[in-house]
Structure formats: C-alpha cells, structure tokens
C-alpha cells in the first residue's frame, strides 16, 4: 500500500476566504460567529451564525456563469482552485483520467431550491430551467472536473455532518490502493436559506447565543457554511515532482450507530476512531491531538468525551482535544473538510487551535479541550472526528508532513 500525501489545501468559511486567513483566525482563537446578515433574520428564534462574509461572486466567476452555479458549488470550486494552485499538480492527459474528485455535501443546492420553490408556490408558479443542475449535490464535483479537465472517477457523498470526512476517506483509500494517482477531496455547504434555518430551529439544537463546545453552559450548535478541499497524491509521486508535503492522510474509519436518528451513541463513534487507528496501523498512544466533532449541543460533547475515553483509556488525559466549530461554526457537509484543514495546519505549524467561547468546565467533558487559547505542541499524529445525524460516523487520521 502506498503512503498518501496532502500537497494542497483550500478553504473558505466564516473565518476567511482562503486557508491562510482561516488559520490565522483559528490560531488566535477568533470566532467567526456573528449576527446573521440574512434578510429574514427577524423570522428566526436564533440570531447568530458563521456566515461567509464579503463574498462577491463576480470576483471569481463570469457573471453569466455565476448564475448557473449555486453558492455551495461556487465555494467548492474556489477551495479546489486554491488547493490545486498550492499543490502545483498538473492534470496532464496521462493524469487526468487517473484523478478522482470526491466531494461531500449535506444540503447540495438547497438555497436554489428554496428560492425557486418560493416562486412556484407563492408567486409566479414557474421554476427556473437551471434549478436541477444548480441544486444537484454533485454540482461542486462536476464543476471541479470541468474546470480542471479531470476525467477520472468522481462522485459526491451525502452523509449529513460526516459527508466530507467520508469523501476524504474514500478518496484517500482510492489513492492508497492505486485506483487513482491523485484526488481532489473535501466538501462544501451553503446553509443560510430561510427554509433550512427554520428546519434547524425546529429541531431545537441551535444555540441562542454562541457555540461553546465542552463548556458547562453550552446551549447548542451554531450553523456555518463554506468549503474546503485537499489535493491527495502518492507520497512518492509528490516527492518525485518536488511538491511540498503538507501532511499525510494515514487512516480512515467509519461506523454506524444503528441506534437513533439524532441521539449519538458512545459505541459508534468509538468504533470509528478505533477503525481509523487500525487502518493507520498506529497505537492510540501515538495520537497527540483530536479535532473533535464538538458541536456544542448538550448531548454530543459528553457522549464524544466518553467515546474518546473508551478508545484512549489513560492516554485520554494526555491528549489535546479541541472543537474548531466554536470558530467556523458547524458547516454540516463541509465540516469535516474544514476541520481537516485545521488539523493539517495544526500539525504543520505545531500549534493546536483552541476551543473558543469556553467559559467553565463540565465534569462530563473532562478532557484537555484547549480552552480559548491555542497551545504550542509538536504533534506527530492527529484524528479528526465527524459524527452525523443518522448515526453515521467517519474519522480521519493524519500524520505530520
């Protein structure tokens, strides 16, 4: 089996429009959570979110073409452009058919659907002819293939909040096993349309103020949006062409709780973490940092803590565990990809991003959650957790480059 290098990162989220901006915010513990700019904010019980701010599609897309692309797919394409540019990879005729594009998205183009169905039911009774291709969940993957001439196996995974960890993990396995010679993998989401927000509100899991993962007074999640993409290629190929190896993907584990639609189990997440460690052929004691799922809901954080304790035993007290959702919000199908970028940067810069907005410890979440201030630490291996509604769990293991 081949080792798999990450040679490019791209990101856009509430913390910035590229990886550098996002990382600067993460390392300084600056949250992107703020009052929603959405016009219909007064129709919502919660008022804050982690929106991408100052985004002008005309700066990135031809104005006619932009009208054909939903916000979630624009984000996917932007982050892919950044990652591919950084990697320096060239999709030559020999490579393009041996490259995969694997994206994750939970909502797909729901913003487009929301707006068009409002027209249909409430106004003109008509639907725009591009609604289907704009709203399809694979639009991001398809547009990346088209822009870069990638003709290999490409698809989109939808496993709610685990979508992009599943996408990156599957792409990693394809590269490791020689099914492809390169992959662009990640996820994207555009969360802030009224229908989607009201549906989240009705679930009663969104915080009325901010996201405080692992804090005693946490009140729920804060929704986010954005995208992140990674360029993956065999370590040997990356070295041969002189590319900088930012980190390695070394393991992937997934599991299903087979329990409840929304209440997480301890066993399912624990099994996914154990599988990722086994897949990486590393001992639990090798792990120095976990980028937690850490949604900040009353139920997720203690359950995740118990799962980590079950897998790591005494080593759980020597691990740093933080939730960067406290800063970039919960970007649903893009969450795992944004957190992969956070984890790779943490390994690379030897700085562990904090859990922001932390107020007081909860005895049920008694881990070192890196409260409020980043920790300087040279870590060799890290995990990144994603656990979805529906009980579908996906965990990635990374190694410093």
């Amino acid at each position, binding site marked *: 089996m081949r080792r798999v290098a990450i040679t490019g990162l791209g990101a856009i989220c509430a913390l910035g429009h590229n990886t550098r901006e996002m990382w600067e915010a993460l390392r300084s513990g600056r949250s992107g*959570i*703020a*009052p929603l700019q959405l016009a219909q904010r007064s*129709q919502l019980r919660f008022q804050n979110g982690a929106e991408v701010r100052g985004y002008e599609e005309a700066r990135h897309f031809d104005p006619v073409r932009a009208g054909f692309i939903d916000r979630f797919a624009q984000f996917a394409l932007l982050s892919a452009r950044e990652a591919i540019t950084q990697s320096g990879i060239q999709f030559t005729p020999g490579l393009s058919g041996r490259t995969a594009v694997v994206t994750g998205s939970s909502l797909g183009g729901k913003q487009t659907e929301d707006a068009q169905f409002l027209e249909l039911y409430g106004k003109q009774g008509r639907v725009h002819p591009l609604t289907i291709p704009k709203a399809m969940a694979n639009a991001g993957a398809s547009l990346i293939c088209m822009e870069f001439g990638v003709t290999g196996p490409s698809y989109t995974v939808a496993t709610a909040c685990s979508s992009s960890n599943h996408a990156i993990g599957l792409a990693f396995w394809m590269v490791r096993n020689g099914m492809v010679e390169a992959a662009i993998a990640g996820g994207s989401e555009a969360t802030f349309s009224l229908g989607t927000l*009201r549906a989240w509100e009705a679930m009663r899991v969104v915080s009325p103020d*901010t996201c405080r993962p692992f804090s005693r007074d946490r009140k*729920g999640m804060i929704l986010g949006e954005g995208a992140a993409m990674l360029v993956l290629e065999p370590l040997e190929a990356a070295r041969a062409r002189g590319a900088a190896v930012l980190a390695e993907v070394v393991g992937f584990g997934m599991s299903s709780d087979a329990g409840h639609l929304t209440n997480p189990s301890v066993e399912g997440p624990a099994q996914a973490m154990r599988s990722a460690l086994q897949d990486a052929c590393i001992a639990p004691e090798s792990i120095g940092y976990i980028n937690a799922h850490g949604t900040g809901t009353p139920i997720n954080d203690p359950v995740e803590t118990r799962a980590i304790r079950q897998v790591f035993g005494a080593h759980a007290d020597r691990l740093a565990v933080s939730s960067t959702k406290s800063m970039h919000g919960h970007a649903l199908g893009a969450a795992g990809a944004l957190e992969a970028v956070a984890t790779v940067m943490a390994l690379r810069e030897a700085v562990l991003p904090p859990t922001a907005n932390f107020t007081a410890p909860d005895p049920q979440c008694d881990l070192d959650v890196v409260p409020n201030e980043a920790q300087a630490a040279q870590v060799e291996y890290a995990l990144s957790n994603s656990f979805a509604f529906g009980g579908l769990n996906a965990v990635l293991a990374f190694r410093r480059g």
Partner: protein
Amino acid sequence: MPDNLSERVLSIIASTQRVPREKLTLDSSFAELGFDSLDAMNILFALESEFNISIPDHAARAISNVRDAVNGVEQLLREQVPADGSSSTSPPSNSAPEAGRTT
C-alpha cells in the same frame, strides 16, 4: 388550570403518538411512555399548532412529562406569546450585535 386545557393537551399527545388516550395521565413521564427526544419535539410542534403558541427552546428542554406540557402551554397562553417566531420570543440580549463573538 382549566380541565379542558389538560384534556386538549392529553388528546394531542395521544393522537400525535398514536397511543390510546386512556394510557395517558398527567403524571405520565415521556420516558415511561417510551417517548424519546424526537417524539418530544413532535409533541411540542403539535401543541404549538393546536394552541397557536411558540414554545421557546429553554422551556421545551424543561418538559419531560405530561404535566410539564400542560403547565407550559397554560403559562404561554397566559403570556400570549405569538406563534410566528417573531423576535418577541427571543430576549433582546440574544440578538445584541456582539453576543456571538468571542470574548
């Protein structure tokens, strides 16, 4: 509390959960009845529709039995909270410009 209010709440819970009305008493806890968190949200949604009220999240979290539900509905009806999710249901402090920022 007016008996007809309790009766309306009990019958809403019975019809939402497809359980015989006679199985429910004011003292039944949701856990005893086998209702989980999704069932509870479903019941609260039905109560909001029936009584044209909006049950705030913090009040919703405190409801774990039939009596809580009746009391909660009664209190909201007394306060006459509108059901359109308008900002009057969230305290102004929640929407203060800096409320969500890191301190």
